């Protein structure tokens, strides 16, 4: 039951025959109509993202106009300039987000990689219970735990602290990354390593020279997954970072909106801020989504 192996779709059997011709042509019309519907769906799904980026480049005065502009006729960078040069707090939040995501990605990759290695390369007592535990933990909702996590950090003096949040993020992301990496490790046959050992390498050498390079794509995909989770996370950050000076970008954006709400939200600037948070993620995601999706699907489907 592998939904991962995207087998090249078999070529359509082209059977030419007079009696079938009319049906083929109605099917062709049908295909065009469905394609049109497909385009409508695509536009509907992409529109919010388009609207966010377009608004970010539109002067605020035009955004307040009664008739919306659907094309970038008066594009300007002024919203970005005001955001990045003023004391909007963007840079502080960016630094916070970068520190937390970097630490989380490093911890997750090292811990999950070792764990994945253990469960896919070794047979040991408790292996199955561990896999079962990971599966269950994967489903624990953060929303059911944040009070306890808040109490824990506050009694350890780790509120508003990079390390505190990163540990919580690491724990939240690890089950899935072990899952994903397990598939990648299992995909590299142990026989390759064994062959290298026959050629005189030690097990560690064989692992580093043969297996590790083959696992690189899996590690990149898992790292990006951890990055996206930590960069976008809102709930845990809201409780673990109550201070004004230690906010991640999502928290900062929320505060930025409510700060301007009283005098009418400056939507151009808010959209510029959203764009700055979203666009790096979108680009990252588009690059690695193939691997991430197959990891997700194999994690979800294959177990």
């Amino acid at each position, binding site marked *: 039951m592998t*939904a991962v192996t995207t087998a090249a779709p078999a070529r359509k*059997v082209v059977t030419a025959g007079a009696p079938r011709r009319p049906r083929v042509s109605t099917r062709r019309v049908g295909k065009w109509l469905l*394609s049109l519907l497909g385009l409508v769906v695509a536009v509907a799904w992409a529109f919010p993202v388009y609207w966010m980026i377009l608004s970010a480049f539109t002067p605020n005065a035009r955004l307040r106009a009664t008739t919306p502009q659907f094309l970038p006729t008066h594009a300007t960078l002024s919203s970005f300039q005001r955001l990045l040069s003023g004391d909007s707090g963007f840079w502080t939040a960016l630094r916070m987000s970068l520190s937390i995501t970097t630490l989380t990605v490093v911890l997750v990759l090292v811990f999950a990689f070792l764990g994945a290695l253990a469960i896919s390369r070794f047979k040991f007592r408790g*292996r199955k219970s561990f896999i079962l535990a990971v599966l269950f933990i994967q489903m624990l909702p953060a929303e059911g735990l944040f009070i306890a996590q808040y109490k824990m950090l506050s009694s350890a003096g780790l509120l508003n602290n990079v390390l505190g949040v990163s540990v919580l993020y690491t*724990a939240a992301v690890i089950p899935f990354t072990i899952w994903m990496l397990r598939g990648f490790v299992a995909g590299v046959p142990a026989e390759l390593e064994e062959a290298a050992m026959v050629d005189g390498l030690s097990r560690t050498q064989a692992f580093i020279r043969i297996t590790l390079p083959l696992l690189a794509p899996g590690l990149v995909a898992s790292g990006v997954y951890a990055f996206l989770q930590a960069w976008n996370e*809102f709930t845990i950050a809201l409780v673990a970072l109550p201070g004004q000076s230690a906010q991640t970008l999502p928290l900062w954006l929320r505060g930025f909106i409510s700060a301007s709400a009283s005098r009418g939200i400056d939507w151009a600037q808010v959209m510029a801020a959203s764009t700055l948070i979203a666009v790096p993620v*979108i680009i990252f995601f588009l690059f690695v989504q193939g691997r991430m999706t197959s990891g997700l699907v194999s994690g*979800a489907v294959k177990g």
Partner: protein
Amino acid sequence: MATTALGAPTRQRRRHPTPYLLLIPAVAALALGLGYPVYWQIVTSFQRFGLAQQFGQPPEFAGLENYARIFSDDAAFAVVLRSIAFCLVNAALTVLIGLAVALLMRAVHGWVKIVVQISMLLAWATPVIAAVTVFRWLFDARTGVVNWLLVQLGFEGFRGHGWLTTPISFFFIASLIIVWMSVPFVALSLFAGLTQVNDELLEAARIDGANGRQILWSIIMPLVRPVLAIVLLLQIIWDLRVFAQIRLLQDAGAPVAETNLLGNFIYELGMARNNFGGAAAVSIFVLLLTIVLSAPYVRSLMKEDAS
């Protein structure tokens, strides 16, 4: 692949400390970040933990009092029902629309498929905060493009209409955001499942005179049913714990008490009212609900692993 995973371990027959050593960091992180909080929640859910305890008094044991209150308190019970309804409606909508999009992607021309794929990925990749913010802007009462469009279409009543101030339209917007964000995962997973459906098989069925509906129900659906079951379950689990979207939409001035879901209710109880015992009981209730919902999924995975 599963056979290699299970086949490889044979080279480590003797009991060996290596796998345990390799697991230590991950287990430690899980124990610290999730294990201890779960333990704390369970213990606290049986305690009376109020304002006095904030000032250092040890909490008293309260038995099942906190749990009893979830079901006897009308407001709390309303939140439970609202969350379950919201979860089921959104999960069903997401999976149905996702399936429709996946089938559509299979039926369209190659370049249209790529366009649909890209726009799905755009929505999937957008961070929650950005997604909620842009939907707030789309549905803004005064300058939002949706109200403008509706007025252009002749619905004068929508001039300056506030979408987020009444619970029903609040949840309509919340569902719109959640469905928009989660359909891509479902559609692309199901599409990956659909690529397994052999074109020659479909062509053969067509030649034998099967119509579109028969092909869908008798050939395609049985083949994608496993993927379908899993994405549905994942959606139910995820939609039960919606927090950020609701919280961020409430910022726009929604009536908080009438729009809270379970996650938000826990937040209100714990962070705002310092009722840690009550918040913990609701949390444990959510955990149990999640486990009950996911048990069949985990069981079927374990069965597969054993075979």
